[in-house]
């Protein structure tokens, strides 16, 4: 909200502030955030009013004039000017040497085509008074000379831009801010309100039919007004707040709102048909032309003001275009009413008209203030537009008494605030008398009883309901900086019922493992476009109802679209001939639907969040080195990442299945022959392998991209728990024996199978079998592969005999022959 320093000065004495900055500091300390301090005379320093004494042509340039300009006193100044619209005797705006104009021009002493010039005559565009202007600004001939232009234009003011929080509707006016400042300074307000109007009379009957949604309504009839241009003071006041002048009556209604905080409205009295005015709920389908010249169709949920025939105003939001005050208007009907904050908010939201009025009604106006506001409005209308009050009516729903507009009483123990804020009870700033004076300064009625206060907040403070609210009032009265800093006592009651620390510990383990393996953690938005999913053959079941753009419309069903996009963009800005290492991972939830996405209970959303760990790998195996070291990663680097991760997590029982052996048939995102399905027990926990070449080509990937995505929860089921520690296992003190075998097998026999057969047949002495060479080529028959296997035997309790190892080896060889048709290579 904009607050004008000079307007505020009408309400409260600001002379104790050396600058607007000091006032801003006070407001901030009291909870009114100042976002900006705008000096309206910014750029008007050294710009003064002056009079042209003489204008003569420039000796060297046809288009320029040389003027002699008077500031009223002192020697006239010589000014070279390029404009044509001035003549001797004109009053003008002179930017003197040293001025720095709003449009950025700095004025210095200069020579223009050989003639000295000691300033510049300004145009309205140079002063940023208008966007465009022709010629220089000519002021009225009555303008006094040598005065700051800012003062003449009413620009010697400073505007504070406040961010008023949603609980402080009472601060949305100059009166409201003045109350705060006065309370802080211990002052009384300077302005007094005009006396209340005498109620009674009027040509139209007012009916309230919306119950508690519109509990009271004050109407006032004025006849014989002259609608026209507003007086200067009014135009300027509204201008400083960024509002355009419309006419004197409309401007006054705005002025009342910014002065007192209560939105009011003026109708053209002759447009109210049928001698009746009703505040009622709209009828579904009813239409209402609004002041912004657009017609809305009402839903039936809105409160409207209606005459005998039709709706003429959307209550609390905007007046009707069918009853607008115009220059021809002679008779006025003024409205000051109370409407339900909730209903006004709904109407403003539904019809997308967040107005200054709805903003204030949503936050709550002073329900006890209607009389004061109306008397102020009406008396200003009479003063500015003339006319005569012929009647006024304050109508209330039911038999409301004034007491009903009061806030409920709050009971507060004498030292409760001390204890709650953390002050000692003998704190001087918080003596009982002090506490009372702070509250009374805020217009609270305070009654002290034996061990407690009864506090009644003023009617305009909707936010004061509990003793905690009063604690805040006291705290901000003395300043939050007075509150001491303590460390709370730890009670010995455990608080671990709902701890996520075990889960986080395991996440940390996984992240640390991937970082150790040379991966950077990426964080991608949880939403993406349908197009980016389409390209990867994916679909999302969770859509944002109000996305920022198509780019962020769907919740991600997988982390891979993000990582693949990251790889592509890294490639895009990579230059040079070296291949770029891509090593990225992410550990985050992905989203799917569990039935309909709707809140079926307080905690159930229908959205399934599944945590995944994913990584993408490409480029050289080492980060540095010579070309001979710079081979690119392949499937087995990718596999190593998974295996290292499982080892760090203590994950057991994971199997890798080639897609050809998978029951699910794999995953179309991956190259079918260079990828695996990961099984955790019997469940598919994910896949890793080469991004499918067709997708790679489609995306214009610059290199092979190896990707993995695994279901985090599945891995955790088979991993060491966060609180489980590894248990020591003794190793054999006795030397083992090794036997190497060169086998020839059919090419479709896997390494896995060879090892499994050996491990089974060589029991109990066999402790390991690993393949250390694989050869296909001219030395073996077509369709066959030569595989070198090393088998390791030992026993934890004794040295092995040559004989028993031979026997075990024979059994293994037999099994190989029988089960996979392996032959020893000749």
């Amino acid at each position, binding site marked *: 909200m904009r607050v004008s320093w000079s307007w505020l000065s009408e309400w409260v004495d600001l002379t104790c502030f050396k600058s607007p900055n000091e006032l801003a500091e006070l407001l901030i300390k009291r909870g009114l955030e100042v976002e900006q301090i705008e000096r309206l005379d910014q750029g008007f320093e050294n710009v003064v009013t002056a009079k042209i004494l003489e204008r003569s042509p420039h000796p060297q340039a046809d288009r320029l004039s040389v003027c002699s300009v008077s500031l009223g006193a002192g020697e006239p100044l010589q000014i070279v000017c390029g404009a044509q619209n001035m003549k001797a005797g004109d009053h003008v705006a002179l930017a003197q040497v040293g001025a720095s104009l709003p449009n950025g021009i700095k004025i210095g002493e200069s020579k223009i085509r050989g003639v000295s010039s000691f300033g510049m005559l300004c145009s309205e565009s140079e002063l940023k008074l208008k966007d465009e202007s022709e010629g220089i600004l000519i002021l009225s001939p009555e303008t006094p000379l040598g005065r700051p232009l800012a003062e003449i234009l009413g620009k010697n003011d400073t505007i504070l831009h406040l961010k008023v929080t949603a609980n402080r509707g009472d601060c949305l006016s100059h009166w409201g801010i003045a109350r705060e400042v006065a309370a802080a300074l211990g002052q009384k307000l300077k302005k007094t309100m005009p006396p209340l109007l005498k109620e009674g009379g009027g040509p139209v009957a007012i009916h309230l039919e919306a119950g508690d949604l519109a509990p009271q309504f004050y109407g006032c009839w004025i006849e014989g007004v002259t609608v026209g241009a507003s007086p200067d003071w009014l135009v300027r006041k509204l201008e400083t707040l960024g509002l355009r002048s419309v006419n004197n009556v409309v401007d006054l209604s705005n002025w009342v709102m910014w002065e007192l905080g209560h939105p009011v409205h003026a109708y053209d009295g002759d447009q109210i048909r049928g001698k009746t005015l009703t505040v009622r709920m709209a009828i579904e389908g009813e239409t209402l032309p609004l002041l912004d010249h657009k017609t809305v169709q009402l839903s039936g949920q809105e409160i409207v003001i209606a005459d005998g025939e039709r709706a003429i105003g959307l209550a609390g939001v905007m007046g009707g275009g069918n009853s607008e005050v115009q220059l021809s208007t002679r008779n006025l009907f003024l409205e000051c009413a109370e409407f339900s904050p909730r209903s006004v908010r709904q109407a403003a939201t539904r019809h997308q008209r967040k107005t200054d009025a709805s903003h204030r009604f949503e936050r709550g106006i002073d329900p006890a203030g209607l009389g004061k506001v109306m008397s102020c409005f009406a008396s200003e209308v009479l003063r500015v537009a003339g006319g005569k009050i012929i009647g006024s009516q304050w109508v209330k729903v039911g038999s409301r008494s004034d007491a009903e507009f009061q806030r409920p009483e709050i009971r507060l123990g004498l030292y409760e605030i001390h204890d709650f804020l953390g002050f000692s009870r003998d704190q001087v700033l918080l003596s009982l008398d002090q506490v009372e004076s702070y509250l009374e300064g805020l217009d609270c009625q305070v009654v002290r009883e034996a061990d407690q206060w009864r506090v009644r907040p003023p009617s305009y403070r909707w936010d004061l309901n509990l003793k905690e609210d009063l604690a805040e009032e006291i705290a901000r009265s003395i300043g939050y900086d007075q509150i001491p800093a303590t460390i709370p006592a730890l009670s010995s009651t455990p608080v671990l019922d*709902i701890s996520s620390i075990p889960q986080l510990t395991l996440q940390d383990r996984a992240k640390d493992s991937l970082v150790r393996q*040379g991966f950077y953690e990426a964080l991608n938005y949880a939403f993406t476009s349908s197009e980016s999913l389409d390209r990867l053959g994916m679909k999302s079941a969770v859509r944002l109802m109000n996305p*920022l753009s198509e780019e962020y419309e769907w919740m991600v069903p997988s982390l891979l679209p993000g990582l693949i996009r990251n790889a592509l963009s890294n490639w895009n800005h990579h230059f040079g001939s070296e291949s770029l290492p891509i090593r990225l991972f992410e550990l985050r939830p992905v989203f799917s639907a569990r039935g309909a*996405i709707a809140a079926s209970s307080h905690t159930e959303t229908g959205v399934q969040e599944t945590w995944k760990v994913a990584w993408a790998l490409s480029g050289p195996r080492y980060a540095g080195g010579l070309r001979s070291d710079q081979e690119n990663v392949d499937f087995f680097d990718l596999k190593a990442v998974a295996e290292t991760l499982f080892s760090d997590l203590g994950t057991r029982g994971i199997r890798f299945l080639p897609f050809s052996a998978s029951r699910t048939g794999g995953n179309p995102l991956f190259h079918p022959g260079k990828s695996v399905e990961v099984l955790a027990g019997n469940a598919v926990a994910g896949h890793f392998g080469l991004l499918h070449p067709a997708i790679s080509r489609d995306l214009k990937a610059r290199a092979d991209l190896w990707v993995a995505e695994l279901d985090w929860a599945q891995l955790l089921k088979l991993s060491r728990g966060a609180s489980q520690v590894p248990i020591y296992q003794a190793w054999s003190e006795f030397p083992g024996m090794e036997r190497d075998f060169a086998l020839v097998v059919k090419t479709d026999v896997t390494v896995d199978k060879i090892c499994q057969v050996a491990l089974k047949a060589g029991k109990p002495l066999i402790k390991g079998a690993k393949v250390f060479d694989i050869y296909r080529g001219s030395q073996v028959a077509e369709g066959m592969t030569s595989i070198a296997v090393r088998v390791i035997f030992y026993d934890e309790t004794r040295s092995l005999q040559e004989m028993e190892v031979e026997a075990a080896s024979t059994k293994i060889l037999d099994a190989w022959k029988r089960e996979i048709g392996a032959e020893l290579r000749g």
Partner: protein
Amino acid sequence: MIEKLSAIGRRALEEVQQTSSLESLEQIRVSLLGKKGSLNEVLKGLSGVSAEERPVMGAAANEWKKKIEAALESRKVVLEKERLEQQLQVEKLDVSAPSRLVHRGSLHLVTQTVRRMLQVFGRLGFDVTLGPEAETDYLNFEAVNIPADHPARDMQDTFFLGPGVVLRTHTSGVQMRSMLAQKWPVRVLCPGAVYRCDHDATHSPMFHQVEGLWVDRNVRMSDLKGVLEFWARELFGAETRIRLRPSYFPFVEPGAEVDVSCFRCRVKASDSCRICKGTGWLEVLGAGMVHPKLFEMAGYSANSDGLSGFAFGIGVERIAMLLHEVPDLRLLFQGDVRFLSQF
């Protein structure tokens, strides 16, 4: 024979001395001491020597053998040393050639910053709890005292996924879940991603928060201040001060915006400071005393008199950007290795 022995011995010692390579030294050893070596040849001739002379001759031969062996050994040491020296003369790497670097990785700045915060607060006794990112309107708003049609809803532009389902705009729903799940005392931190419809250099539609909640008997506002001061000093340095300004968040009362003194310009604010823009203060979080409405919503009974608590919410990206001088929030979410590899 003695003479013959002596002659062989002397000549051998001479040869050993003159040998310049380990290979020829070995040849000499074989030719003298080998099975068919000359010394052995001499000893074989012992059979033709008289019984009286034999021990004398034997002893002499053994003495020569020892001398020669000693000479061979010492010459070998010398020659080996020479050879190593020669070898070391030749063997030289260009140590400036590129190393076979392994890849280095790093945690995302958000993860690093969250970890630091959890560590600092953890030392004060906070537990950690996580919650879903898709949240009910009820837990995200209603239960934390932001009813439907309340102007406070304007403070947070919300993404909706379905009727009554939102992407959480803060992690306060997790606080509520914590209170619903257990009796007080509650001391939890809720870290996680949150979402608001806003996108520019200082607003991201997805960002992260660490919220804290402490509920117990007789918790005071001064406790909130002390806890935040401890956190600020741990994170920004021992001289850091904090400033609380009254503000409004529906789930707390009293509420506060919290600033920390600029860790770059320290005591004296400098107009040129690019961190605090000359104000000397950095706005970093919102906090306050838990609104009694939340206790009511959590079903904490009316007889829990003296129950109070504080809560705070810290924007993780904001802290990370301040500490690491990151100029644009969007950099954090682009997966750009040029960015990620700096931290």
